[in-house]
């Protein structure tokens, strides 16, 4: 409960900060402090300190998995603020509001990571979707940003409709007329056509939220049109939040029926990996390439829903942590660049060795090269599915796709290190460089000792 209430309150505070604070830098500072406070609350909650004893009538259920995810998401947001806070404030004229919206998104994510009832799932998803529609269009004078916002809103509204329809079906199919997760997959209607219809509709709407193919069509356009900082946030923390809701729903509600629906997830995974990786190869802009790469990464994350075991739970958290950190770091560099084409990266290593080195680590991690966290994350995903003994063909296919992904990630590395380019002026302060390099080192640390993170999941607090 700590995270939900604190993030909402902080959102309100940030919204009014614009009245009292005139300078952008002070608003950014306030946002960073607020984020630290929120992270502290989440960590305290995980350690057993609950400050807001609210009776939720079992609508929300706070387990270590969800709370730990909140900590990871908030820590990633903190890194995001530290790296790109200045760029968020520079989107338009109302910096306080952008931060407020981000805090509301985090509130939605905390609900989506702890729901125990379909109603709360719906509310959580809506709470983090609506601020995002606004954030996407926050670059008001830019036509592309407006277009992206409208597109996202229309598609989002559509998927919301589908989700409601699915919830209605499931409600009807449940034995006692209940929205609670534990009542959904049991009783005489378990596996009945009505229930399966509801389940698949929910799966479709969740696939839309995490941008799994073939429900990904909005992603490239929205990611490309939105201001780059917002894209960074959407592609990492928001996507992770939606994904946690996805895995929670299918683990807690439909885990026993997994033989009925796993094949659909497998098909989703197949298409997501295929479309994400193949299309990313042909992109001319790094921003769009990262949009498609984020689709491709979802393909790997979907393995955790196929695996649905302890290893999958551990793995998805590690995956989210390293994927978010790497992508946030890359976008932070990208935001500072004027041109998003691959050529713009030519010769970057000579001029900005620190940024180029960090970007290389981020890219290696996204590609899943050993010694980086990305490798261990992919390892967990694959191993969790192989433990179940099914879907071996999908594992092999995923690895072929991983080899393809090397192609487009390495194109950036090649541009930075092996090609010559004109010198360019980027505003990379020493503090920014230090942050980048610490993110990179953190990713390597998680790649060598992933248990530093994963063991937290198994500590039992009293």
């Amino acid at each position, binding site marked *: 409960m700590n995270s939900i209430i604190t993030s909402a309150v902080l959102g309100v505070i940030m919204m009014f900060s614009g009245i009292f604070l005139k300078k952008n830098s002070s608003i950014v500072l306030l946002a960073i402090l607020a984020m630290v406070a929120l992270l502290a609350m989440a960590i305290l909650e995980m350690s057993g300190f609950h400050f807001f004893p609210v009776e939720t009538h079992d609508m929300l259920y706070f387990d270590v998995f969800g709370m730990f995810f909140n900590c990871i998401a908030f820590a990633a947001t903190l890194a995001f603020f530290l790296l790109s806070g200045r760029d968020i404030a520079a989107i338009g004229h109302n910096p306080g509001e952008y931060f407020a919206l981000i805090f509301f998104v985090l509130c939605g994510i905390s609900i989506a990571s702890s729901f125990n009832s379909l109603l709360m799932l719906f509310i959580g998803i809506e709470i983090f979707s609506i601020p995002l529609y606004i954030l996407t269009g926050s670059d008001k004078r830019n036509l592309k940003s407006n277009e992206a916002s409208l597109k996202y809103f229309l598609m989002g509204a559509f998927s919301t409709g589908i989700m409601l329809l699915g919830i209605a079906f499931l409600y009807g199919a449940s034995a006692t007329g209940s929205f609670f997760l534990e009542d959904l997959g049991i009783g005489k209607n378990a596996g009945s056509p009505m229930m399966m219809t509801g389940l698949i509709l929910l799966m479709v709407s969740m696939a839309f939220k995490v941008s799994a193919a073939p429900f990904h069509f909005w992603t490239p356009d929205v990611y490309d049109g939105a201001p780059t900082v917002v894209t960074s946030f959407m592609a990492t923390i928001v996507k992770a939040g939606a994904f946690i809701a996805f895995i929670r729903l299918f683990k807690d509600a439909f885990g026993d029926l997994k033989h009925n629906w796993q094949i659909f997830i497998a098909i989703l995974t197949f298409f997501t990996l295929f479309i994400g990786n193949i299309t990313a190869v042909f992109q001319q802009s790094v921003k769009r390439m990262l949009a498609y790469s984020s689709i491709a990464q979802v393909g790997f994350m979907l393995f955790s829903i196929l695996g649905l075991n302890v290893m999958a739970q551990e793995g998805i958290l590690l995956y989210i942590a390293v994927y978010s950190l790497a992508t946030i770091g890359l976008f932070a560099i990208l935001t500072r660049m004027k041109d998003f084409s691959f050529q713009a990266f030519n010769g970057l290593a000579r001029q900005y060795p620190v940024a180029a080195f960090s970007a290389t680590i981020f890219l*290696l991690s996204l590609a899943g090269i050993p010694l980086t966290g990305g490798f261990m994350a992919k390892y967990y995903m694959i191993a969790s599915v192989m433990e179940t003994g099914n879907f071996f063909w999908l594992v092999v296919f995923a690895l072929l796709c991983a*080899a393809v992904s090397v192609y487009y990630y390495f194109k950036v590395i090649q541009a930075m290190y092996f090609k010559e380019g004109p010198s360019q002026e980027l505003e990379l302060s020493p503090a920014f460089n230090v942050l980048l390099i610490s993110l990179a080192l953190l990713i390597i640390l998680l790649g060598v000792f992933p248990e530093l993170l994963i063991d937290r999941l198994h500590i039992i607090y009293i």
Partner: protein
Amino acid sequence: MVPVLLIGIPLLAGLIGFSLKDVVAKSWSLFASLLVLAVSVTGLCLAKNSTNLQFSIPWMGTLGSRFSIGLDGTGQILCLLTAIAFPIIFISTWKEDYKKARNFFGLMLLSEAGLMGVFLATDALLFYFFWELALIPVYFLASQWGGEKRIAATFKFFIYTFLGSLMMLVGIIFIYWHTRNQSFSLNAFYQAHLQMTNDTQAWLFWFIFVAFAVKMPIFPFHTWQPDTYEQAPTAVTMVLSGLMVKMGVFGILRWLAPVLPVGTYEWGDTVSALCIIGMIYASLIALRQDDLKRLVAYSSIAHMGLMCMAIFAINDIGTEGVMIQMFNHGINIIGLWIVVYLIEKQFKTRKISELGGIAAKAPALTALFIIIVLANIALPLTNAFIGEFLMFSGIYISKATAYSTVFVALAATTIILSAVYMLNMVQRVFYGPTNVRTENAVDIAGYEKFVLGLIVLIILVVGVYPEPLLHLGREAVANLLSKMYIKH
């Protein structure tokens, strides 16, 4: 302690190297590599089963992986080779000016650390880590300091090997789930096949074999090799062909044949056939090459093919031959590369057709080179003769295949072919009339004589008295084969 130092020294020295000045980086890396050599020789002098040769601490507890490394027979020869090779590489390219030399030498040392790790790891996940750690510095080295088409060529190399290693990763995870206590340790892996059906072993074999086949390379996974060798700077080519290809042979010896014995028996003939095709094909192409680097590259494919074949003979003579030949091939091919490098440095060309008559002007270079060439075509009294003789006898008396006579006959033709293209090359480069380029040729400098002389010395000593090296491998071979005698 010894294995820790073998990995730790180059790793630390490499990381420190990145922060040094360009001028001192070269001496620093030579110093570090000599230190590694000293440690490696110390390791040889220690008693077998000494606790100093093993090291193991918990690493990823819940996954069942330990950071365990150990120096034993198979790895020892290759560690020694690596430790000898790096100082030789550094000295022979001493005069080369690299842009951003500190990065170059830092990456070189990192790749040495990765190679050492591959040869020392006794934990499958750790092995996989080092396998990639050796690859990545080499990729950066080749694409930053290489020739004109370096980016495309080395990228092809990277994608090939990366895809191969991913396949191996699937294989490793699959075996992991079949070990008794979910462990990645080598011993657990050696027991895992008892839990698998023969059919499982048969298909699993290919998942792991592909990674090693790409590395060696075995036909049809070899297409990255000539381009990469040609485009990489010579120092890196030496690492690639002298040391990294041995990772493939070593991988089969330690991580494939004893882990999946049934699969190895079952596919032995297929793999041998691929090796034969590759050997003959590469030898024929080598006959027609005009570029010295490509010629050596193709000759290397032929030699590696024979080693791979000899492993699948699955008997002690053949495997002992492979052990000693891994060392010999590493030394010989580095010698060849040094000469190619010296020629290119002096005459600014690698084209055989543009060279000629060097012998009269550079007698020392010629004399040393001819011994290396003779070793490469396995003439008696040179080191490669011992290895190839053992390997051929091993294949000939092999009980694992019904076609041993055919295999030996076909493989032997490549020995003749190798004599043809190597001697032809010597004749056209070193003898005959001089031309504009080679008129003013000068002989090699003192330190270059020293390096080549050292290589020739190793060639002759091992060729005349191979017993110490054979002894080193013998126990490992017996150990290995004991895991492969299974009931049919």
